[in-house]
C-alpha cells in the first residue's frame, strides 16, 4: 500500500476530499520547488502532483508548457529533481505523485525510473502519453515496487474503455474534465458531473478530476461527485513570476489555493 492509497483510505473514512495542486519541478529552480511543496503541505493540501519538465509536451497548454521551457532553460536535470525531493523526504507527510512524459521514463529504463522516483519519495506516477495498451510492463513493474501508476480517462474515452482503464489504474483514476490541453477554463462541460458519477458507481478506485479547474465554483460543483480535485495551470500561473519575486509568487498561489480549499470545506461531510 502506497502513501496515496493510505491517504484516500483516510479521507474516505472521514468523508473528506483530496485537494491536489500541480506544480512544475524546477520552475525556476528546485530550491523554490521544495519551498512551494512545504507551503502546500502547511496550507493543508492532501497531496501534490509534481510535473517533470519535458521538451515536447503534447497534453499541456501554454502556461505549463512555458513553465517547462523555463525550467529546462535553466538546465534542470532529472537527477536534480530526485535529489531535491529526497532531501525533504523525512519532514514531508504529504504524498507526491510525479507527472512524467514517457520519453523520459523510457530513456531511464522503466524499472530504473520507478526505483529512482520511489527512493526520492514519490508514491506514484502519471504518464500522460502512455495509453493503457502500452502500459502493461510499467504497470507490472509498479506493482512489483508498490508504486502507483495513475491512468487517465477523458471525455473522448468510450464507457467500456473507461472501465478497462479504471481497472488498470492504481492510486486513483485521473478524470480529465475537458477534451483538450491543460489550462484554466471559465466553463466546464455540462455533462461532467454525470460522467464522473457514472464511472464512480462502477469502480472502487478513488476518482480525481483535473484540467481546467481554477475557480471555487468549479470546486463546489465537482467535489461532491469525486474523491479529489487537481488544479494545475492556475497555480503554475501564480508561480510563474517567481523569477522576479519568490515571496510575491508564493503569496498569490497561496491566496488562490486558500480560496479553493475553502470551497472544498462544505464537502467535508
Amino acid at each position, binding site marked *: 500500500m502506497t502513501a496515496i492509497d493510505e491517504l484516500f483510505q483516510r479521507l474516505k473514512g472521514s468523508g473528506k476530499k483530496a485537494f491536489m495542486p500541480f506544480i512544475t519541478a524546477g520552475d525556476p529552480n528546485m530550491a523554490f520547488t521544495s519551498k512551494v511543496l512545504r507551503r502546500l503541505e502547511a496550507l493543508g493540501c492532501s497531496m501534490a502532483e509534481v510535473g517533470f519538465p519535458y521538451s515536447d509536451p503534447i497534453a499541456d497548454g501554454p502556461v505549463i508548457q512555458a513553465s517547462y521551457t523555463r525550467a529546462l532553460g535553466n538546465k534542470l536535470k532529472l537527477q536534480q529533481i530526485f535529489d531535491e525531493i529526497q532531501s525533504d523526504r523525512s519532514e514531508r507527510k504529504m504524498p507526491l505523485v510525479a507527472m512524467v512524459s514517457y520519453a523520459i521514463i523510457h*530513456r531511464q529504463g522503466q524499472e530504473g525510473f520507478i526505483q529512482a522516483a520511489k527512493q526520492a519519495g514519490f508514491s506514484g506516477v502519471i504518464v500522460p502519453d502512455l495509453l493503457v495498451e502500452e502500459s502493461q510492463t510499467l504497470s507490472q513493474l509498479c506493482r512489483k515496487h508498490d508504486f502507483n501508476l495513475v491512468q487517465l480517462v*477523458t471525455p*473522448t*474515452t*468510450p464507457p467500456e474503455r473507461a472501465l478497462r482503464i479504471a481497472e488498470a489504474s492504481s492510486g486513483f483514476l485521473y478524470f480529465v474534465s475537458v477534451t*483538450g490541453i491543460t489550462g484554466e477554463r471559465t466553463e466546464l462541460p455540462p455533462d461532467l458531473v454525470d460522467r464522473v458519477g457514472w464511472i464512480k458507481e462502477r469502480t472502487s478506485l478513488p476518482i480525481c478530476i483535473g484540467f481546467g479547474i481554477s475557480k471555487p465554483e468549479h470546486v463546489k460543483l465537482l467535489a461532491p461527485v469525486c474523491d479529489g480535485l487537481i488544479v494545475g495551470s492556475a497555480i503554475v500561473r501564480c508561480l510563474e513570476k517567481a523569477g522576479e519575486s519568490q515571496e510575491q509568487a508564493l503569496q498569490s498561489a497561496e491566496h488562490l489555493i486558500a480560496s479553493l480549499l475553502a470551497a472544498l470545506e462544505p464537502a467535508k461531510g
Partner: protein
Amino acid sequence: MSTIDSTAPKIVDPKSPSSNPTTSASMQVPDASGRFGEFGGRYVPETLTRALEELVEEYQKARKDPDFQAELDELLHRFVGRPSPLYHAKRLSGLLGGAQIWLKREDLNHTGAHKINNTLGQALLTLRMKKTRVIAETGAGQHGVASATACAHFGLPCVVYMGAEDVRRQKPNVFSMRLMGAEVRPVESGSKTLRDAVNEAMRDWMSSVEHTHYIIGSVIGPHPFPQMVRDFQSVIGKECREQCLTSLGRLPDAIVACVGGGSNAAGMFYPFVQDTSVRLIGVEAGGRGQQSGEHASPLTYGSPGVLHGSYSYVMQDNDGQTSDVHSISAGLDYPGVGPEHSYWKDTKRVEYTSCRDDEAIESFDLLARNEGILTALETCHALAKAAQIAKTMSRDQHLVICLSGRGDKDAAELARLRGQEW
C-alpha cells in the same frame, strides 16, 4: 472496432514473413498495434485514442473500397499529373562517369513535391469520417502547400502550423498557402522549426479532435499515421518499379532518397523492400558536423526513444529531452524519423548515411547547370550522396534518385546563404 491490445496472443503463421526468425525486413508491417518490429506504436494522450481508432477503422475500410481507390487514382492522374516521369539524366550520368542516373520526378507533381500524394488521400479520409476541418504541420512548407491545395480542392478549412524560423526561410510557400485560403500559424515556441510545428498541431488536435482531422505530413506520429502515409506515398515506388521494368527491362541497382521524417523515402523504398538486389540508401541531414545540435541525423547518430507519438530513432539527451538539431533545409530539420526507417535500419534493409549542408548546397548546381532542374534543398541531400555513389558504380548499372521536390522555394534562401543578391 480494431484493437491495439498488445496482451492478445499473437497468432504465429510459420509461412508469414513477419514470423521469419531472421532479421530480414518484411513488408507485412506494422502489426495491429502499429509496430514495425519494436518501433512505432502509439504514445499519445488518451484524448486522441478514439480519433486514432476511428482513423484506423476508416482507413482499413477505404483501402478495401474500390471506389476510394478509384477516386484517389483519378485525382492523382488528372489533378496531380501522375504518373510522374522516370527521367534518364544522361548529361549528369556522363559527367559523373559512373552509373546511369534516373530521376523519379516527384518535383513535377502539382504543388512541386511528393507531399500531395498523401494529402489528397488523407483529405478523402477526412470527408469519409465526416470531419469538417483540417490541420497540418509543415517544415519546408511543401506539406503545408499540399494540405492547403487538397483542402481548397475539397472545400475544407485548413490551418497550417509552421515554425517561425521556417516561415522566414520558406516564404514563397507561406504565400502560396495563404493564396489557397489556408491559415498559416507561425509557431514561436522552442526551436521554431518542424518539431515545434508538430507539437502545436498536436495540441490543436487535442482540443479539436471531435471535428478536425490532423493530416500528418510524414511517416511519423502515432499509429496509423506511419503506415497510412507510407501507403499513400508508395505510389512513388510502385510507379518507379514498373517504369524501371519498362525502360531498363530490369530493376535498378540502387535507389537514393533523402530522409527527414522520411515520407518520400518510405514511399519509394517500400515497394522494393523484398527486391533484395536493389540497394536502398536513405540520406539524412548531416548539417555542419557530427556533434549533437549540428545535424539532423537520428538514424546515423541517435538512439531509439519516444517522440511525437512513436518509438523510433531520435536525437535525445540522457534525460529523454529532445535535442536541438540543425539542417540547412527546413524539411529535414527534425530530431525524429519514421519508425519504419528505424526498422529498416535495424534489419539492415536500407543503408542510412548523411550529407552535410555544404555538400547539399553544392549539388544544387549539379542538376541546375547540367540538366536544367532546380532541386529542393531537401532533395539536394539525396542528390549529393547519389553523385558520390554513382561514381563508384559501372556505366551499365542504374541508380534512381527520388527527386522529391522542386527548388523554386529555396531560390531566395540559397541566394542569402551564398551572399548573392535576390
